[in-house]
């Protein structure tokens, strides 16, 4: 598996909270994505109905995934393309490398692909002397910085524009060192200029896929920069890399999903570019690759399909749950330690990496429910997080403090007479300890609370004790 630091979640969190640049960068999520989604969703009268339809399309497809994948393969092959099945990331990497080597590739341009991150394709190609070049601006920035994406649609959301300028000056050493990179447009033009030649030189273009359409054998990508189009049409070989749950039965279904995707993600009605690729270049086509390959990855997803987490496979990777999650907004994506952060990552990561590695993620949530409220395909994310917690508890991965705290509390909670006898009058004593302040500044075994907050003192006798007195 690709490097993960999910097991060090707590120390990742400490770093993230202390990182001022990160905290500054994260502020843009609320004013950007969140505000724009709200406007876009309210402007479309049938948005809630579309979410129901989107959910139903995905639920149906997941229930018949084998059938639709088979139809998809037939239609890709009928249009002259090739389908490769990869059970895990090793197989996926080997398939991609082989296609690249057969094309005698020196450089590979890349569209944004989370599956590419999941299988660590960049590192693998580099080790095998092939240069991967990210062409999505965000991905390009984090490639220069040697980082993982911190967001599934805005990979560099954790980076401030000053940090981007710094990375550009460090890398683009041919350019005048004193050039101005203060305006985001300057950064964009510079990246475009740097990438222009790479698009033309590349031997292979590797993209992800937002959807695979069974009835036509088509892969669909959405981008806002047009980089995906150049990546998949200019080189002589196009590889689309996707996981099994990207399959959708029909073109009609995709149009429904597209209507909720961009609105949920960026608040756009549609992404700037929505590109459908079916097979290699045909004779009458003006452009397109000579070879068209689709690599379809499982990597643990059929296990999810068969288990308690199949609803997670509805996810269309819009990022709305990240944008709206107060935990994600506090710590950013890197703290989650692997490719998928936020609520969707907290459900998916234990499924793909194992619970031992990722047991913190489903626990580090207040279950506030905001993610489910905005999910375009209505994934019950809090319920799925709870399901992981059931397993955390069953497998005894709960930390000892919480476990014993809960055991003690449950013992009393299950014995009302004992409970009321013990707490009935005793709260008065506790209240007295607080004295004139009405709160405590520190409480033994509650340092998690009292390190940063005072703890309000109880009023005195319990309600039950007072109620008894009143009704004597």
């Amino acid at each position, binding site marked *: 598996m690709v490097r993960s630091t999910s097991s060090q979640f707590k120390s990742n*969190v400490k770093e993230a*909270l202390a990182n001022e640049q990160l905290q500054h960068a994260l502020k843009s999520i609320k004013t950007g994505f969140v505000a724009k989604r709200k406007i876009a969703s309210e402007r479309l009268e049938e948005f809630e109905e579309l979410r129901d339809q989107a959910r139903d399309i995905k639920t149906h497809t997941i229930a018949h995934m084998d059938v639709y994948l088979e139809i998809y393969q037939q239609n890709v092959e009928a249009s002259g393309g090739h389908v490769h099945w990869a059970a895990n990331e090793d197989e996926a990497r080997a398939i991609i490398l082989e296609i690249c080597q057969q094309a005698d590739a020196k450089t590979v341009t890349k569209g944004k692909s989370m599956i590419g991150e999941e299988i660590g394709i960049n590192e693998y190609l580099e080790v095998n002397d092939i240069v991967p070049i990210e062409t999505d601006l965000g991905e390009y920035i984090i490639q220069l910085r040697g980082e993982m994406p911190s967001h599934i649609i805005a990979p560099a959301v954790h980076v401030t524009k000053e940090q981007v300028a710094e990375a550009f000056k460090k890398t683009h050493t041919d350019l005048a060192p004193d050039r101005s990179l203060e305006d985001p447009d300057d950064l964009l033009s510079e990246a475009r200029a740097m990438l222009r030649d790479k698009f033309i030189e590349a031997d292979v273009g590797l993209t992800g896929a937002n959807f695979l359409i069974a009835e036509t054998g088509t892969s669909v990508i959405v981008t806002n920069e047009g980089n995906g189009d150049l990546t998949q049409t200019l080189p002589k070989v196009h590889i689309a890399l996707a996981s099994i749950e990207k399959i959708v039965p029909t073109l009609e279904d995709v149009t429904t999903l597209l209507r909720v995707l961009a609105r949920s993600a960026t608040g756009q009605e549609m992404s700037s570019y929505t590109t459908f690729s079916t097979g290699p270049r045909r004779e009458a086509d003006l452009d397109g690759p000579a070879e068209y390959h689709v690599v379809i990855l499982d990597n643990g997803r059929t296990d999810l399909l068969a288990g308690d987490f199949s609803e997670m496979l509805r996810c269309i990777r819009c990022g709305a749950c990240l944008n709206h999650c*107060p*935990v994600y907004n*506090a*710590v950013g994506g890197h703290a989650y330690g692997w490719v998928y952060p936020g609520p969707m990552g907290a459900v998916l990561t234990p499924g793909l990496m194992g619970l031992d590695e990722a047991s913190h993620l489903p*626990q*580090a*949530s*207040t*279950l*506030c*429910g*905001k993610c489910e409220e905005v999910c375009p395909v209505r994934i019950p994310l809090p*319920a799925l997080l709870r399901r*992981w*917690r*059931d*397993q*955390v*508890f*069953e497998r005894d991965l*709960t930390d000892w403090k*919480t476990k014993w*705290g*809960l055991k003690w*509390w*449950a013992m*009393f*909670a*299950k014995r*009302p*007479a004992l*409970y*009321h006898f013990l*707490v009935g009058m005793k*709260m008065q004593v506790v209240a007295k300890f*607080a004295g*004139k*302040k*009405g*709160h405590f*500044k520190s409480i033994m075994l509650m340092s*998690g*609370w009292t390190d*940063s*907050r*005072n*703890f*309000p*003192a*109880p*009023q005195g006798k*319990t*309600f*039950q004790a*007072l*109620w*008894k007195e009143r*009704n004597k």
Partner: protein
Amino acid sequence: MPNSSPKASFSSGPKVGLFVTCLVDLMRPSVGFASVKLLEDAGCQIFVPESQTCCGQPAYNAGDTKDAKDIARLIVDAFEEFEYVVAPSGSCAGMIKEHYPKLFADDLEMTPRVFNLAKKTYELTSFLIDVMNIQDLDVSLDQKVTYHDSCAGLRELGVKDQPRQLLAQVEGLIIEEYEEAETCCGFGGTFCVKYSDISDHMVGKSIDALSETDAEVVLGGDLGCLMNIQGKLSRLKDEGKESNLKVRHVAEVLAGMTDTAPIGEANG
């Protein structure tokens, strides 16, 4: 009625079992008495089963299904005889209403019982508006308040307008909404101690947003969230950040019982 203490009353209104909740029982009984007053004024007969402790949510959210079920059975036994069950908490009412049915989904004996209980369980303000249709609270308070929507009440039970409709009936009271009213304050039950760094950061953001209003009091329907917000406000004050914002459960204001000290402050 066994295990229950009916208030001597000639009311013929609905029999309501008051689910006090463990936090109100232990920390702030005044919220329980405010709830009793509101319900009695609405014409209800109040019963407080002694065999109640907690709804079981801490165990449920920690994945301890067995303890959660044992505790839930106690609550079902204690409350199923009443016409309604009311709790001064969206979180605990949500546990009974939304999660008990899931907890016993594969238990044929319990399923009809938990569904029956879920159907008649309400968060306090929701019960007062949606069932009792209270339109004329006889109470006044000259204060500017703001309201924090607790997550479970808001998203599991749809409690949003009900507390505001009730507060609008309080003479002299002005509601000034704050921008992050629907954003989680970071309490989250055991979350607030287990992941205290994140929790602290979240409540800090809530307080930043609260500070932008002119409100003198922040009200809410869940004691956990209110204790979290007050605890942070109080610590910030210790650290020199001036704020006169008080914190109260909405029931105290609606019942006109604001003579007790606000949360986290001492009487007198």
